[in-house]
């Protein structure tokens, strides 16, 4: 699974530590003098292309659910949750993600939904992004491992959507 990729990544690293000398030669007695200013943080990651969008699941593209069905699309974290109460109506697909592994605090969760026509052809996708750890999302009271979700059917597709597939491309627990 990968997001669409663009140009190769090259980084510029400006800071070298708490002061300009940190990361350079040590003056400690007995140590071998070193040439200051050598690369510390890797400035480039060979072969890695910068993503150009949100994550996709190849299993969404490959799915051809029957009319009326909501199926689970394979993703990288399928052994860490269950998807239940999956329902599709004219405007949205809903369900509940229950995290079953290493439950402490749910930091990141994204549910990707694909929408299909009567012949099982993928018409489009949309996603649910649960507000993360740093956002204090006001979901106090909800069990951290249970995340109800709702993904809207894109407005222009509503007349043709008859089935859906949902998967989880992003999941991070404390």
């Amino acid at each position, binding site marked *: 699974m990968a*997001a669409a990729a663009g140009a190769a990544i090259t980084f510029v690293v400006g800071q070298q530590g708490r*002061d300009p*000398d940190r990361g350079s030669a*040590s003056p400690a007695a007995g140590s071998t003098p070193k040439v200051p200013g050598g690369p510390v943080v890797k400035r480039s*990651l060979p072969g890695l292309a*910068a993503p150009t969008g949100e994550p996709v699941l190849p299993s969404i593209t490959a799915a051809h659910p029957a009319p009326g069905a909501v199926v689970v699309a394979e993703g990288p974290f399928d052994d860490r949750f269950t998807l239940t109460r999956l329902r599709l109506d004219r405007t949205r697909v809903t369900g509940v993600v229950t995290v079953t592994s290493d439950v402490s605090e749910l930091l990141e969760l994204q549910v990707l939904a694909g929408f299909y026509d009567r012949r099982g052809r993928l018409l489009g996708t949309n996603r649910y992004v649960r507000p993360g*750890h740093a956002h204090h999302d006001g979901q106090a009271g909800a069990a951290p491992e249970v995340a109800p979700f709702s993904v809207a059917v894109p407005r222009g597709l509503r007349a043709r959507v008859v089935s859906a597939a949902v998967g989880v491309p*992003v999941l991070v627990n404390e």
Partner: protein
Amino acid sequence: MPLPTRAGAAALLVVAGLAGSAAASAASTSAGTRAAAPGSVATAEGHGHIRNVIYLLGDGMGRTHVTAARDRFHGVSGRLNMERLPAVGQVATYAVQPGSGQPGAADFDPEPVTDSASSATAWASGVKTYNAALGIDAKGRIKPTLMELAKRDGYRTGNVSTAEITDATPAAQASHVLARGCQGPTYSAASCQNTEVTGTPLPTSDLRVTPVADQMARNGTADVILGGGLARFDAADEQALRGQGYQILGSPATQTVATEEDLADARRRKVFGLFNTGNLTIEKYKRENPGSTQAKEPTLPRMTRKAISLLSTKRAGSHRGFYLQVEGALIDKRSHANDAAQTLEEIRAFDRAVRVAVNFARKDGHTLVIVTADHECAGFSIIEKGTFTNAEAGTPPRNVDPSNPANNSTPTRSANNKLDPLRSTGPINGSGAADPKSFAPATFRTPDDPESVRDGSPDASLWLSYLSGNHTGEDVPVFGYGPGSRGVDRSIDNTDLFDVMGRALRVTR
């Protein structure tokens, strides 16, 4: 934060020596390795040239966690391996708010309770940062890590954890991201961006929004990578790792987890082995299910031993020594869950990893071992047998003193608290085990108890309870062994650990 002068350190060395001797004597009849003999303490403290640093941390392991594990496994007069180390101190762990300056700056804005990301960045990069940040300061500026500095200067490096290797603690040594949730395998804006810090979203080509797994697989910061989290890596990562010469145990491309046998066969200079798609499995489950697949995962002491072996092997070319970080991650994760039985066994496994490190250091004579934690988790408490906590009571304790009104306080509570039978229905690992709403403590027998006493019984002497399911802001213990260990023999800040280890390795001023 400046460290004490050399003269001050020398004075403290005397105290450390005495403490070490006392610990050695007290520990002589307990389980575990024998403590350093009193006469060897000075050697352990450090006249030697430091070649290696082994840094071990129990995630979420507060002082009470250590004491509880000591009581549970060695009795109240025993000692864990970490407690036998001659240098003992404590570490302040606070974080700062996003955008904050460093301590002493006009815009310094502290956050009393840290998370694992901020704390790990403190010792890895020497700066305070906000919770969730890795390898950057609170203004979002990239800061080199000790592991990167060590690598640059010719040391061999290792990163070992029982968590996903992209989790906050190991990631802090080998990546730089705005948000710890940006682990991979793919980028997403919600998990990787933080416009509270950067103002506007960063381009996806920026290192700070590049998933940790992508960074780790390509930056070569750690020569030896052992832990969990295979699901964070994919086929492209495997290709990148192979291109750098890593021996890959299992396969990210096929999501085949590494095995204990793979680990035993690992020989190369660079090794990448992840033994679970997520976090490694807790010790208690493996002990109770010896035939399970999970029971075949290597333990933390096993991974530590292998990492040391790989890193210390003399190879062609220059070899300055090594820097190894070892994390017992599940202490924190099971503390979040308020499961004392699981937590205690994770601490024991971590302590066995400490023994592995110290045994190596003792033979080597040029290795600094530091053992500490990133923060306390869940307000772990040892309460007196037969007593109860506020969570089990209907009201807080009485604060009215009829005999001395000077002691009165407000709001007035003239009735003493009583155990609420609805909140406390028996030890949660015993008679209250069927009640998920019970706030009662978990009780454990110790080696000091009669043989007939069982865990979960009111007769067991060790009563353990939790304040919450989250981190707390208390200081954490730090222990040290070997040359340079006197640098932790006092109250320090978690950023001081960067200085102690950086100086030991001579990679910082």
